[in-house]
């Protein structure tokens, strides 16, 4: 569904990604794992159009979307949940959600909103409260909910575990994985927390210093002791 071919990104003299190619198939979670500074966030940001790659292509359903604006990419059906605080604390919970997918029809947005509240009941309970009153886990649910409001075919999740309790991370990721299975949505998950990510993912890709060092079934990667010691540090 989403295909990356030979992507290279550099910030000045620093090469953040070099010649990265990968596939993100529908209906499942693909995990990109790697240590801090491996280029994971750069990969996500260039897929969402926030960073312009120097080289390579991003194909969405065989259409070249390299270098498009982030708002256009979002409208095509690729939604990024960026790392960290990606909710707007000055808006209410429901306003944060309604921000997603504003270009869609009233009916589509209504259906999506009902679905998000069904997936994350706590958001429904707090819909009229300010987003700044939510806990870290609830805020991550809100960020994912906002992305889902765009009705995405591809969901890009950048480090959703950051600062969250392991139990909450597992819950959220399992929900996302179930959603991918049910709706045929493609999910690209980027994580430093490799063990958790590989548990929900079908395919694992190990990124180190901007290059892919290994990719294969998540199960194999999780059990590759050498790889774990060398790149994942556990």
């Amino acid at each position: 569904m989403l295909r990356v071919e030979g992507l290279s990104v550099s910030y000045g003299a620093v090469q953040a990604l070099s010649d990265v190619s990968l596939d993100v198939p529908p209906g499942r979670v693909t995990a990109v794992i790697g240590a801090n500074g491996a280029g994971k966030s750069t990969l996500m940001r260039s897929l969402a159009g926030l960073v312009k790659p120097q080289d390579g292509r991003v194909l969405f359903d065989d259409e070249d979307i390299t270098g498009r604006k982030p708002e256009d990419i979002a409208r095509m059906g690729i939604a990024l949940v960026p790392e960290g605080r990606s909710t707007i604390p000055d808006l209410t919970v429901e306003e944060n959600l309604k921000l997603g997918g504003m270009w869609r029809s009233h009916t589509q947005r209504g259906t999506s909103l009902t679905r998000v509240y069904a997936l994350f009941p706590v958001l429904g309970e707090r819909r009229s409260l300010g987003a700044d009153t939510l806990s870290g886990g609830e805020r991550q649910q809100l960020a994912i909910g906002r992305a889902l409001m765009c009705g995405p075919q591809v969901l890009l999740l950048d480090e959703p575990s950051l600062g969250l309790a392991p139990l909450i991370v597992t819950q959220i990721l399992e929900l996302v994985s179930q959603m991918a299975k049910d709706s045929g949505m493609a999910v690209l998950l980027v994580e430093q927390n490799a063990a958790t990510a590989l548990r929900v993912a079908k395919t694992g890709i190990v990124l180190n210093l901007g290059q892919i060092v290994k990719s294969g079934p998540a199960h194999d990667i999780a059990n590759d002791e050498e790889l774990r010691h060398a790149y994942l540090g556990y």
Partner: protein
Amino acid sequence: MTNFIDYFLGGVSTGAIIALMALALVLVWRSTRVVNFAQLGQAMITSFIALTVRDATGSWLLALLVAMASGLVVGVIVYFLVIRAVKRLDTSGAIIATFGVLIALQALAGMVWGGDQKAFPPPISNSGYEVFGRTWPFSPYDLLVVVMLIVLVLIMTIVFTRTSVGLAMRASAFNPEVARLSGVRVSRMLILGWAIAGLVGAVAGVLVAPLSTLSPTSFDLFLVFAFTAAVIGGLDSLVGAVAFGIGTGLVISLVSGYTDSGNAPVVALLLLVLNLLFKPEGVFSHHKARAV
């Protein structure tokens, strides 16, 4: 005591106009983090356009509507002039650019309409109401000014809090990246912010012109007052702009009444300095201190 009441009442409509001007500054600040010193120049140009329409047709309402429409257009034009500077330089470059635009607008007005003070007659009586056997410094025109402020604030509140475009504008101001990732065309929202600011400023210009006279530089002092009100209000708070706009109007009326009208700008600047010393983030801002 009667003096106090008189000075107080006399400051209400001035305060309402300062509030409108401060609102325009806040709208621009919220969308692009630029203080637009050309705002008053834009209002001056649109007031001249309004005066021309009024003289030609005799209709104040038509003049107001034309001023509002041209305020939108001039706002968009100035946005493009200034934002080019932001892209090439930085925010402080843009602020200098707004000064440049202000001077250019004043020169343009001088060339087209001349440098003299022109009278801009009010649409309704500007002599004070007579109640309890005396004349109060509050006229039907003052009432019109206050009503206009209330109506504009109500419309803006509804647009910002109840409509999708308002939500998109607020999100673009608070967090442009998240807004773009949500599919909002943020650059259009910024232009819209400048356009609405131009409209609000145009209304302020048409309302203030009858209180004195109209010339290319006659609004300069209002820039000081509106800037003071906007900054004390927190620069990104619409409520703050309205509250401190009216407050500034009352303060300068009291200062002018008890001392001399020449002291009013000094007091305004003094308030600004005290604010920046003791509460630099502004009274209504929810952000932490900004760099001064």
